[in-house]
């Protein structure tokens, strides 16, 4: 394990969560204070800031973003928030370290969509197009996005139905809390 390998992962836009099995080696590496400082300096020279908080690591960009970067950055955050809103509606108590099961989620969705059309609208907005016509392909696309947002990770090789919720979910929840500081309790 070296700084270059970690940088390669982080510079793909990944958020490395401490509770991720896939990236456990990276986390252990970054938890070493000296290595973290060294990486911090190296990333800084390349124009990035390495962040470590709440059990997850990611890079931010120093200085101004260009128009395209800013657009991609805002879109990704919005999409991730929509994805979390779907997850939390289907499983209100899930949090970092919780497990979700693909089929259970589809089942719950079927129960809820009849009552609340907003969930299907959000889902459609998130995974629109690309031939996502039936529920399975829509949920495949949703899980694919959740994985790409580094929010979930498949548990085990054989049990392909079960996923672990990663620490990175807290990153987005923190932004939501900042953006909605005084949201009134509904219901």
């Amino acid at each position, binding site marked *: 394990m070296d700084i270059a390998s970690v940088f390669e992962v982080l510079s793909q*836009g990944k958020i490395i969560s401490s509770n991720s099995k896939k990236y456990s080696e990276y986390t252990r590496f970054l938890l070493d204070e000296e290595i973290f400082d060294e990486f911090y300096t190296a990333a800084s020279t390349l124009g990035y800031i390495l962040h470590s908080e709440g059990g997850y690591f*990611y890079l931010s960009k120093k200085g101004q973003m260009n128009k395209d970067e800013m657009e991609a950055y805002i879109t990704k955050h919005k999409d991730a928030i929509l994805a979390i809103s779907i997850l939390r509606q289907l499983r209100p108590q899930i949090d970092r370290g919780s497990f979700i099961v693909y089929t259970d989620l589809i089942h719950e969705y079927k129960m809820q969509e009849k009552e609340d059309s907003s969930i299907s609208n959000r889902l459609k907005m998130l995974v629109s197009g690309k031939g996502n016509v039936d529920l399975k392909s829509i949920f495949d696309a949703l899980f694919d996005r959740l994985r790409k947002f580094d929010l979930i990770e498949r548990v085990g090789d054989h049990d392909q139905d079960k996923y672990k919720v990663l620490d990175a979910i807290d990153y987005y*929840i923190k*932004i939501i809390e900042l953006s909605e500081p005084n949201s009134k309790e509904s219901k």
Partner: protein
Amino acid sequence: MTHIELISLMNRHKKVIDQAYKGEIPSHIDMALFEADIFNKIGDRIVLNEAYIQFVNTMLKRVEYGVIFGKYAEELQQLVTYKKRFLETSDKTYLNRIRKGIEDVFLKFKRRDSDISVLISKIVHENTLSLEVILDDAEQILLQMQELSKASTQTYDIFSKEIVGLNKEIDDLIIDVKIDIQRYSDNLHKYIHRLNGFILRTKQRKEQNNKIAALAQKIMADDTSELEALLRSDHESLHHTFGNTKRHKIRTAPSQRDIEQDRFSAILRQIFTLEPHKAIKAPQTIYKKQEVEDKVVLNYQKLIDDIKRNMPEDLFEYILNHDEIEKFDTVQIKRSEAFKAFLMAVSEHREHTKIDDGFGSHHIRRVAWI
């Protein structure tokens, strides 16, 4: 009413029934629900049928904390009664009953300790119920546990103060049991602490979920100015979305200089803008060809020496015709150089000169060398 009719009725009024199940009092309840005994009136109060609540709890696998916690007061009271009877009658049957009673209470404590531990794990990891139901259950359990904590202290006191001293066998049993009861009591405090934490987290999560739903609604309505302002203002501390997501790789990283946007855009402009170069005009200065020039210099000393030797009567005339002046090109220069030499000689050697009143051939006063 048939079963299917009952299900249909409940389906029609599911929101009202759900509200009542969650402990809220619905504002309007259809009479059909009273007729089907789903709701009952007790005086002015309206309650959901207890049998229905039990049925739902079983179906939803909600924790049955009533069974776990049980009642202790009666058993403890019984022990105190047996003690009184024993003291009155000295009948050892009561001693046996007391021993059996202590063992029962102890076993209950023991079983309850493991049951509560399982119960709390179950509720903390409950994944299918709504947060409202989980919170409700957790708060109920917490109340029961707080009651239980008091009961533990009470049991401990009754064993130590009321029952002790009747018989050595019972005293030994009480000592053993008290140690364990103390341990279970400590555990109970830990469970209460854990459950308190869980309730707090669940309440926060409930609030969080409201915020998530509110923000998602804004995103759907394209009303995201606040979120965008937050993201824009704080982008240096937030996760950077790296370039082309299809490639998933950054082959080159920008240098520090690239990051400075002004400079970077200037470099890009330089690269991608083609501006015709203006022809550079040659400088207008005309350079003369350098020529070798023989500098003609008058040997003044030689001139003076010749003057001293020849002692001319007309000094200027002599100088003008001297070889040293002959060296010069033009008549003009010859006259100028001769005049300068003449003035120098006169001024330097005044004592050897005699200035005449008259003028010489070149309209210059005649000076004789003496």
